[in-house]
């Protein structure tokens, strides 16, 4: 009887259905996970193998023996359609899990884990997680301003607790965001941003100037801004309601390694099983059948998938990734930070030197209508040769809407040279073609070491400053002042009958003001920033209930290129040339939560750089505008002249010195300033030469690394298509030198401003690298790897040497000599790519070529049968 049953079981092998197959695979994944943990722990006990190490070896040996002895059953298992489909389905489900569970930061680093808190008292964990978030919580190291809950914990525990919190909060937010949208499909029940009527009116006027599309886009942005804070608050409430469940879910995901799915042993096991399954099913038939038209496509796809998995295994076992921080001012470097961590410095068998680095911004045009005073930021138009734009839309006499301005870019240049414009006084004072009063000053050369404005460096071996020309326009607020490069005086210009205006300038209403904070609270319904003057130590109450305290200020904020921190300017504020003003502010919310300390740098717009979202109070947008005239600094002077022809230099102490054209002004410091021309209504001719065509295509172009400004030639047509039509061809350059970036139309209706848009990502970054090695004597020498074009890297075009790939990844606007280079060592790449190509070719054969060929054969057969 027993024999019969045994025989029966042998004759009817187990059939793997859709219930049993996934369970078996899940079991194997669990075994794989356990084996992975054991392998990671193998031999870590120091000298000799421990009992569990021997157990692991025994397990491996017995598994191998089992697989060999049961090879027929194993083959049957993998050849089952149900197993194959289950493997693919479970792979898909695993990846779905990886999408639904946010992966931990830097998950690609195989050693990265969510910190274990098993030895930290639960009440400490609970108190820390419940405490309001501080800026210090984002830092992976201990800081003096860390949460008080961490006080008293051993350093290592405190660090783990901070790491856990960072990951948990990212998880909590991502899941809350997802659940909120899942429970509000199609936006049902979400807050709607209702625009106030005055905003809508302003938008309509905006639309008349810049077009309806621009207006509608602005309205969409405003709706998003108005509803943003409410939505964020609702997500916060949702998270708070489900805090415990989210915490449990996070711990469960951590325990099951779902938040590092793709680096887990269970996932690797699954992919391994999938590979074995594909292998068994690919070679079921003989070569002749596999290469038949019916099968060859599917065979190729399977071969491709196997190749991808093999390549993936090679990558998994060998890959190292990191970032190499290079600077033009530094020598060759052979050390990169693996996975971006300064704790994992890794050396290459050679060194790299940055020979060139360049960043090119998008050429951009802004069109302003002086009379409109729109609060909204003006549209920015990215330019290219042939670019056209119609603006200032108004109904014509026939009632049809027509543009009253037509712009057309005739030519763009990667480099332009700006010469000093030629200025002369209009023969008729009231000539509408004139640009009003203008002072042309000659700045004599400065000796080496005297310049403070950064044009000549930071002291030491800085070169002398060459002779320059300065153009000051007393009626143009941003261009009426000269700041001495040696920072010994500030001089403003004033034009008029009397000197009352000049006296007012010399005695600023608020001499202690350091500048203005542009404040916008998106969630409080603010779309436009408000300029708020500030003093050091002042507390400002702003919208949204925030209090902003200006704690520290410098006019000369600098970072060490080596990444070691800020280079502090120890001089008093008044002695610092305002090259890069910066302030630290302390932000306290209405409800009195934890304050946020934020650095504001005048030259940087955190929002445009995408960093605003990383701030604890991210709905409060702040930017800095330094007051260079009124803030502490060297003595102030005003150069005044008037229609009667007299000119004088007024000082703060009330003294007046006559100014004679061609003779130096009596100003303090080493600078020699001569008023070359003091004009009443200047006519001028700009001198702008376009030197090189725009950078096009991914080709090496030395002009990319040039520091010259970009150039533009644009045709401006006023009232096109009407009898009043008037066309100007204007040359501009993206520099404020000699007003080369500005143009006003003769009727003073509108202005053009041309610039490189450095607010967000640039047009491109490029670096030229050189490989350096050591010779037998240990001396560094440069390896000859051909011309620069062969060693240039761009985003999308890496440099390969010695098995390493180097690609352009980082750049920092305030550090123009720094280039962040991604480093990858991965021998699996060509194998995987080959597999992918095979898969594409196989799919094309199976689903395109095969049906076409079969259809033709079938048609021929039908025709042959039909033939008499």
């Amino acid at each position: 009887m027993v024999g019969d049953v045994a025989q029966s079981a042998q004759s009817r092998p187990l059939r793997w259905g859709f219930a049993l197959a996934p369970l078996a695979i899940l079991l194997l994944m669990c075994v794989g996970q356990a084996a992975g943990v054991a392998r990671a722990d193998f031999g870590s006990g120091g000298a000799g193998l421990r009992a569990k190490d021997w157990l692991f070896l025994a397990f491996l040996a017995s598994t191998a023996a089992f697989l060999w002895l049961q090879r027929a059953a194993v083959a049957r298992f993998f050849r089952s359609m149900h197993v194959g489909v289950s493997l693919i389905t479970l792979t898909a489900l695993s990846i779905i899990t990886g999408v639904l569970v946010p992966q931990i930061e830097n998950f690609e680093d195989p050693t990265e884990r969510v910190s274990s808190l098993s030895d930290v008292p639960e009440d400490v964990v609970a108190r820390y997680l419940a405490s309001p978030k501080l800026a210090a919580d984002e830092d992976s190291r201990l800081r003096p301003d860390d949460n008080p809950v961490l006080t008293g914990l051993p350093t290592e525990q405190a660090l783990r607790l901070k790491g856990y919190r960072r990951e948990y909060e990212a998880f909590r937010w991502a899941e809350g965001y997802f659940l909120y949208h899942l429970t509000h499909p199609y936006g049902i029940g979400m807050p709607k941003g209702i625009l106030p009527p005055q905003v809508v009116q302003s938008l309509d006027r905006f639309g008349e100037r810049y077009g309806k599309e621009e207006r509608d886009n602005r309205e969409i942005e405003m709706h998003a801004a108005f509803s943003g804070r409410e939505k964020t608050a609702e997500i916060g409430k949702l998270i708070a309601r489900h805090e415990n469940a989210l915490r449990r879910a996070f711990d469960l995901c951590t325990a099951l390694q779902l938040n590092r799915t793709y680096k887990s042993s269970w996932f690797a096991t699954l992919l391994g099983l999938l590979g074995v399954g594909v292998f068994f099913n690919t070679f079921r038939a003989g070569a002749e059948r596999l290469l038949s038209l019916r099968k060859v496509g599917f065979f190729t796809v399977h071969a491709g998938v196997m190749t991808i998995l093999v390549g993936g295994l090679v990558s998994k076992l060998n890959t190292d990734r990191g970032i190499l921080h290079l600077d033009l001012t530094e020598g060759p470097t052979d050390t990169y930070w693996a996975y971006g961590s300064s704790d994992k410095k890794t050396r290459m068998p050679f060194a790299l030197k940055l020979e060139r680095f360049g960043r090119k911004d998008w050429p951009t045009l802004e069109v302003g209508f002086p009379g409109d005073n729109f609060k909204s930021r003006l549209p920015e138009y990215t330019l290219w040769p042939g670019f056209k734009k119609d603006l200032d839309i108004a109904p014509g006499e026939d009632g049809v809407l027509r543009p009253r301005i037509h712009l057309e870019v005739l030519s763009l240049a990667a480099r332009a040279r700006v010469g000093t414009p030629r200025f002369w006084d209009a023969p008729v004072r009231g000539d509408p073609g004139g640009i009003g009063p203008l002072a042309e000053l000659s700045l004599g050369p400065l000796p080496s070491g005297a310049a403070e404005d950064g044009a000549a460096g930071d002291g030491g071996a800085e070169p002398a400053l060459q002779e320059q020309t300065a153009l000051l326009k007393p009626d143009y607020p941003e261009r009426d002042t000269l700041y001495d490069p040696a920072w010994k005086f500030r001089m403003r210009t004033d034009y008029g009958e009397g000197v009352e205006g000049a006296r007012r300038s010399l005695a600023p209403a608020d001499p202690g003001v350091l500048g203005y904070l542009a404040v916008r609270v998106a969630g409080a319904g603010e779309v436009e920033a408000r300029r708020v003057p500030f003093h050091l130590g002042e507390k400002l109450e702003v919208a949204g209930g925030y209090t902003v305290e200006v704690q520290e200020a410098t006019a000369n904020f600098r970072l060490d290129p080596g990444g070691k921190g800020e280079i502090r300017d120890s001089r008093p504020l008044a002695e610092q040339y305002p090259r890069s003003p910066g302030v630290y502010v302390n932000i306290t919310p209405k409800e009195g939560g934890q304050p946020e300390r934020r650095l504001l740098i005048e030259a940087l717009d955190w929002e445009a750089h995408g960093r605003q979202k990383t701030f604890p109070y991210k709905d409060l947008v702040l930017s800095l505008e330094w007051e260079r005239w009124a803030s502490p600094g060297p003595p102030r002077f005003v150069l005044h002249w008037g229609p009667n022809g007299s000119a004088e230099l007024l000082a703060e102490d009330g003294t007046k010195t006559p100014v004679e054209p061609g003779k130096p002004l009596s100003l303090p410091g080493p600078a020699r300033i001569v008023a070359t021309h003091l004009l009443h209504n200047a006519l001028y001719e700009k001198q702008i030469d376009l030197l090189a065509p725009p950078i096009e295509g991914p080709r090496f172009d030395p002009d990319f690394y040039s520091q010259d400004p970009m150039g533009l030639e644009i045709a401006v047509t006023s009232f096109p298509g009407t009898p009043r039509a008037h066309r100007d061809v204007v040359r501009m350059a993206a520099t404020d030198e000699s007003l080369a970036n500005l143009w006003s139309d003769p009727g003073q209706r509108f202005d053009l401003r041309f610039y490189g848009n450095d607010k967000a990502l640039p047009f491109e970054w490029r670096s030229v690298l050189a490989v350096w090695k050591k010779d037998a004597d240990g001396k560094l020498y440069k390896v000859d790897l051909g011309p620069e074009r062969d060693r240039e890297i761009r985003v999308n075009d890496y440099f390969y040497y010695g098995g390493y790939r180097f690609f352009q990844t980082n750049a920092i606007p305030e550090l123009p000599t720094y280039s962040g280079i991604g480093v990858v060592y991965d021998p699996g790449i060509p194998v995987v790519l080959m597999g992918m190509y095979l898969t594409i070719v196989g799919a094309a054969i199976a689903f395109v070529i095969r049906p076409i060929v079969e259809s033709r054969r079938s048609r021929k057969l039908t025709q042959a049968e039909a033939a008499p």
Partner: protein
Amino acid sequence: MSLEAFSRWSTLAGSGRWSAITDLLCLLGLLVVAAAGIAHGRASLRGERLRGLPARLGNGPLVVLVATLVAMFASIWNRGLEVHHFPSQTMSEVLNMFTTALLVSMTVLHFALALTRRGPGWAIVDDVLVGLVLGGVYFTHAYIRTLSTAQRDLPPALQSYWFPPHLSCLIFSYATMGIAALVALVFFVTRFWTGLFAGGVPRKTQLVSFAGLALVPFAQVVTLPVLIVSGAVFLVLWRLKRLPGPSRMAALERELDEVSFRAFAVGIPFLTAGVWMGAFWAQEAWANYWGWDSKENTALITWLVYIVYIHLRMLGGYRGSKAMAVLVGGALSVFMTFQVFGYLPDSQKSLHRYTDDAVVPSEGQQGKAPTEQARADVSQPAGGGMGAPSAGRVGG
């Protein structure tokens, strides 16, 4: 109503003008489709082919489809000129590309499936598909009008020769897979309404069908309108006592399964090529062919769902409604990849959120530069920084 665009014709850019023409053609096309459907239906009932004027009317949907496609191509072409790059940088541009792909795909499938050649009954299916595509294009354009159409510069990583083929392949495959799922959807709504009005379908099947057609979030965008409109049509057929019987339904299930598979077969090579082209591109940009980014993963999930479909259908013998249900599941995955992606938990730090207007692209920025760490350092009140005002910084 997009036809409002015609009132400000002179101020519209070229892409806007052609988009407005496309919308007009879609509305016109729906009327033509309805007329052609009625003509085909009557011919089918009489058991004869269309001749003369009705035959020309029967070709109307194809004519309108091609005309709409030409208008949409003109719109995309103009948009490319207006933004000076391949126009797929913003969500509005990508959706316009998708509607173009829908029209291309429907035109290709019209000839590849050759439904109209099978007789007037099958021509109705073709009419329905053309109608659904034209309606889909029209309503997608209506949705696009709620999005920003502002031009955005291409970030450096998108300035690659892989950008157009990668995106075109994926979008064409998504459109084709979507149409394959529409074929399946036609079957499911037919079975649901026939079962409801005439019976003969098990209650459990009816409940599952209803849940699938009406309750799946996000899929409802397509399934609910189709369910409602088809309900009206089947109500009329029921009153006319023209509902298909069980044998006709069985044949329909078999044949629509075949048709949907053929549509799928057109799309899957493009899906495969599109997914792997993304890997080739990533390899060139970051020397990382697969970064397990959530967008890559959702595309891979879609591909795997379709691989499951192939295996079930070709090896497991899954045919008919079971196979078509998997196909609809694949289309849902496409929808998730394409539209719901931005809400998925792991997408918050994705490198692929270029199309999200609220996100400033930060692609290419991998790892923290030392100066970013320095910024964090100097943000500490003690241990660095500019020092307190009392330190004599200000004014000496």
